[in-house]
């Protein structure tokens, strides 16, 4: 059956709302933990961008691949990663999804097609293109989705990926989450022209979505993925959104002055994807009590996982050397 990508049905909308809340609750917790000195490193939060990852990953199964950015908690959870295993990883515990070897910038769950958050800006472009090549060789309808930011769109590998994927008609969806900032540098300073316009010279269809509206992201990415799955080759999707938190939670400790105005941040907080999601649910006839119940349920569940993760065991240093090569581990 051909999907109708005009509107998500209420059930889908509820599921996406809940997934956005999981990301928000988890990240609020992690931000607070960092500020309390409970985490070994700063965290790059996805807060404010949840609609983008959730709207897209709602079309993907475990068999599809994603690569992510160093703001990767949201993509990990949107793709169905286990919040407990992620929280434990960021707490540097042995229960962590990477056994405490990867940490906040490197959460990955290969069994769910999550090929990892990546500390290198644009680091996922080649990996996703390779996974898309693998999917093409397998010929079983899998796709690879590469999440990257507007800063990474200035990496040469972005152009290289579009060239190869278009030539070889690879099932690759390139998703630029345009939040207007490359670390502390404004996009207008770093990026010439419009990123969406970079697709057409490579014969790649371009799609744009309101990255703070989960229904819009779901609709547009559904159409983009339909194009990708049809065998016609890659597509570029730009979702316009904003991180309402800093580049990294640690920045308050080293920045001497703010780099963006309170008005700018406030204008985006007013477009919060979760509150807009709640409004969509209300419009769709979901009762206020039901929405509150979802919020309470997610909050309680994340709090319980956080408590468990915080008291999990530390990883064993004896494993570090043997982790480098498979033969050593065997």
């Amino acid at each position, binding site marked *: 059956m051909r999907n109708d990508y005009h509107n998500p049905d209420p059930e889908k909308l509820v599921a996406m709302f809940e997934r956005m809340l999981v990301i928000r609750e988890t990240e609020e917790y992690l931000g607070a933990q960092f500020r309390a000195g409970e985490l070994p490193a700063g965290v790059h939060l996805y807060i404010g961008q949840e609609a983008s990852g959730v709207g897209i990953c709602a079309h993907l199964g475990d068999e599809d691949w994603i690569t992510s950015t160093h703001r990767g908690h949201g993509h990990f959870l949107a793709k169905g990663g286990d919040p407990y295993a992620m929280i434990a990883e960021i707490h540097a515990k042995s229960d962590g999804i990477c056994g405490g070897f990867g940490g906040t910038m490197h959460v990955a769950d290969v069994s769910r097609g999550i090929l990892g958050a990546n500390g290198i800006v644009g680091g996922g472009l080649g990996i996703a293109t390779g996974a898309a090549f693998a999917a093409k*060789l397998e010929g079983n309808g899998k796709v690879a989705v590469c999440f990257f930011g507007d800063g990474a769109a200035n990496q040469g590998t972005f152009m290289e990926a579009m060239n190869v994927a278009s030539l070889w008609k690879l099932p690759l969806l390139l998703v630029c989450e345009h939040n207007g900032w490359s670390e502390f540098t404004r996009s207008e300073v770093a990026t010439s022209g419009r990123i969406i316009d970079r697709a057409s010279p490579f014969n790649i269809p371009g799609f744009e979505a309101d990255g703070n509206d989960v229904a819009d992201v779901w609709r547009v990415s559904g159409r983009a993925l339909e194009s990708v799955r049809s065998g016609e080759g890659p597509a570029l999707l730009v979702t316009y959104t904003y991180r309402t938190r800093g580049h990294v939670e640690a920045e308050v400790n080293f920045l001497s002055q703010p780099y963006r105005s309170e008005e700018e941040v406030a204008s985006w907080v007013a477009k919060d994807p979760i509150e807009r999601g709640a409004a969509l649910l209300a419009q769709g006839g979901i009762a206020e009590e039901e929405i509150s119940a979802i919020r309470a349920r997610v909050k309680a569940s994340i709090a319980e996982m956080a408590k468990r993760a915080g008291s999990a065991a530390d990883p064993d240093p004896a494993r570090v050397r043997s982790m480098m090569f*498979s033969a050593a581990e065997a």
Partner: protein
Amino acid sequence: MIQAINDAMFEEMERDPRIVLFGEDVEISMFGDTKGLRERFGPDRVRDTPICEALLTGMAVGMAAAGWRPVLHMMFANFMYTGFDAIANQMAKLRLMTGGQMKLPITIMAGFGGGRSTAAQHSDCPYPLFMNLGGVHVAVPSNAGDAKGLFKSAVRSDDPVIFLEPGGRGGEMGEVPDGDHLVPFGRASVRRSGIDVTIVAISAMVKLAEQAAKQLAQDGIEAEILDPRTLVPLDEDGILASLSRTGRLVVVDEARDRCSAASQIAAVAADRGFAMLKGPVRRVTVPDVCMPYAPVLERSVYPNAERIADVVRELLNCRDYQ
């Protein structure tokens, strides 16, 4: 050697349908090592790529993570610098970073080294960089038989391997054993036995060391030549065993001297073999310069049999340590 590698590729791609070969000009095959594979295995498994090394190395990681066994051909080893991010930041690290979830059976192959006036950007010997990454194996065959056996081990390994062919002098002959010939990683081969000095020679340097050994034999000096075959893992025990027989060590390496593979081997000898040493560990390497173009200039910096023999004679005359 090229024919041996080509044979290895045919046999391995025949054996394992998950092996995919891609890279620049693999269909025509400038070196000849990938010749005929496209005709045999088709465009899905053997394909030319654009010249975009930064993406290609990343693609190898993605393909491997998705369950395939990519072989990436990069022609000249210098081009690995262009693709270095995914080698250094992804390939070498993702197994550990994912807590062992990710298996990366990747082989990256390229010709390396000087000696043919290809000048600085086509003559480098980059394995010291790869040795330092931690998470990639480095194979450096010196002859046809080892090239075939090491290549087969490389593509069967579940970890990333940098496989370097001595490009300038890549046509080295030699016997290739029949059958499914595999050379394990981390096991050095004794190319010549001797009692006076151990010469550890890497890849194309083995041939020069053999020439030097012949000259030295005329003076009654018997050199033992050891070919490490892989630099990661490095057969430290094999090197020390040879050192225990000879008490003297010369390392011949065509990398630039500073932080060369020879530096590491010298450090191993100093660290674990100090009591066996009858003299200083000496290195025959390329000075810390870029490879110049003119043959006369290139010859002036490149190791040769005379330099190796001279260093050995100096070492044997060094009485301070005895």
